[in-house]
């Protein structure tokens, strides 16, 4: 009973918040983020808030979620935004299939929906009769940039391993595929490929063990920089400075490692601007611009010492 009351209180509180937001004539954008425990999304959120302050011609309602797999709360957020009657929903889906149905409902309610960061599943979109553009980086292409940098250095037959992200996560899959594209193009020898769940300590242990099993490894492709840091530390304690490491994300902590050569390269997908750019695109449509189509690719860049 008590719980119910608290829930009711929370809901009416939300409604009031929405009420004040609606009172203004400015369009309202609902931003749905992934886990704010991830510094990549945390920075993106900060970027979006700064953007809102700078533009000042729209209201921003932003929600995050507890962890990478908590897509239930994203679905709830979409439904809350529909109830509040926002003008646009800008969403980084936690699950590329589960999010299609609620987003369809939002589009039917006349809300402009922009899908960024991770693309919704093509099949699931077709099944629901949804046509929706995707604004985001090419994770697979980005991983291939890093993989190619490694391939160029090692040349044909270079022995490499991949440290993967969470099994089943879309960006983890795309990055693995990108690395595998490089392996195929440069005819590298892929010795092993394992997950370290995006995490430094696990990558450190898993990679140490891979290095024991394959002492002849020449290059490592890590699907994010947190794991690349774990790999670099493992190489330091093994006393190996002959193995090249590439990562992904360009988090501040890898800056010094790239400068002094402990890492060969990482990939920047300008996460801080990503949500802000998607909001710009959504507002153009809200203000009567043409609908977005296909894949609006956002910039990615290889980061090396030079």
């Amino acid at each position, binding site marked *: 009973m008590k719980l119910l009351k608290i829930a009711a209180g929370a809901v009416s509180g939300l409604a009031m918040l929405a009420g004040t937001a609606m009172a203004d004539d400015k369009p309202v954008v609902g931003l749905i983020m992934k886990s704010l*425990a991830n510094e990549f999304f945390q920075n993106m959120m900060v970027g979006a808030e700064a953007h809102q302050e700078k533009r000042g011609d729209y209201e921003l309602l932003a929600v995050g979620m507890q962890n990478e797999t908590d897509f239930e709360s994203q679905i709830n957020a979409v439904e809350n935004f529909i109830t509040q009657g926002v003008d646009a929903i800008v969403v980084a889906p936690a699950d590329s299939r589960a999010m299609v149905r609620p987003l369809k409902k939002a589009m039917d309610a006349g809300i402009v929906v922009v899908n960024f960061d991770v693309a919704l599943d093509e099949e699931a979109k077709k099944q629901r009769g949804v046509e929706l553009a995707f604004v985001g980086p090419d994770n697979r292409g980005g991983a291939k940039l890093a993989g190619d940098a490694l391939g160029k250095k090692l040349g044909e037959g270079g022995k490499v391993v991949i440290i993967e992200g969470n099994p089943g996560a879309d960006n983890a899959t795309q990055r693995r595929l990108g690395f595998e594209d490089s392996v195929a193009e440069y005819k590298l020898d892929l010795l092993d490929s394992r997950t370290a769940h995006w995490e430094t*300590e696990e990558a450190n242990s898993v990679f140490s*063990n891979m290095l*024991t099993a394959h002492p002849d490894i020449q290059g490592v492709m890590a699907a994010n920089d947190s794991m690349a840091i*774990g790999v670099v*530390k493992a190489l330091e*304690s093994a006393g190996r400075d002959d193995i090249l490491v590439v990562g992904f994300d360009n988090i501040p*902590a890898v800056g010094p490692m790239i400068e002094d050569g402990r890492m060969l390269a990482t990939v920047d997908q300008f996460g801080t601007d990503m949500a802000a750019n998607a909001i710009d695109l959504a507002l153009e449509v809200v203000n009567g611009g043409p609908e977005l189509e296909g894949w609006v690719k956002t910039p990615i860049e290889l980061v090396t010492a030079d």
Partner: protein
Amino acid sequence: MTTQTLAETGQVKRAISLRSVLNNAGIGLALLALILFFSVFTEHFLTANNITNILTQITINLILAVGMTFVILIGGIDLSVGSVMAFAAVVAGKAITLPGFGPAEAIALAVVAATMTGVLCGVFNGVISAYWALPSFIITLGMLNIARGAALQVSDAQTIYAFPIAFEEFGSAMIYGVPVVFIVALLLVLVAWFVLNYTVFGRLLYGIGNNEEAVRLAGHPVFWYKVAAFTICGFTAGIAAIVYMARLNISSPIAGIGFELNAIAAVIIGGTSLSGGRGSVIGTLLGAIIIGVLANGLILIGLSDFMRQMITGIVIVFAVILDHYRAKYTAK
């Protein structure tokens, strides 16, 4: 009254230590079998480098599991150690990167910050679950979220880096091929072993696990003993945070997710009963080694990630079944 209880616990102690030798022998044999298996079927398992690797890799889990043993012995559980470790690491990371300190002061400050953070979380867990006699499962589940949220809040979800070189050197230092951080863990095991076997406090923790009411009626402050067990567990989470930082040279607010389960697994595989009152920290040491050997050996053998996860799970289930029979044998 008290002397009588002490004499009794003395007798119980002899019986327990004989039994624990037998128990540990069983775990030791299982470990030997695993080592033999991996030595035969993989090329690199029994090399100095690989053994060094395994010791480094089990260190954090072993440290957490030592504290966890205290809590499980009194019939409790602490689900918060992974999050508390991350929280302690982030607080210590903020402390160690404060401007205006020399390396030595900064490191000392970080060690104090990490252990104090761990101790405070442990006191919270202990006081609340013991004072209101609430299941520690729920209280520490609450702390799991509190500490994780606090870690993210304090760090603003950013990885903290750039620690003093001396700190990093401690994390990778070796003495005759044995990682210094592992020696730290081993010292904790020894201290815990001494406390649990040769102090009144330690014996009474077993007593609380077996029959809390009897210990209370004998006039002992059960409340404070329970708080102490959780505090020790929080303290070891703080030490684990220091080792994490020294080894990886970063503090990540998302570190240690799921570490509590590995620590519990080490304790249980080591033959400590989940219902409390029975077990030993030497068993925990063996349990942690078994988990580390499995994680390492299964990769060397080339088993896929998913199969590896399944096999680790099967070993835990098997250990609990074994514990069931051990309990039966003990009851006779």
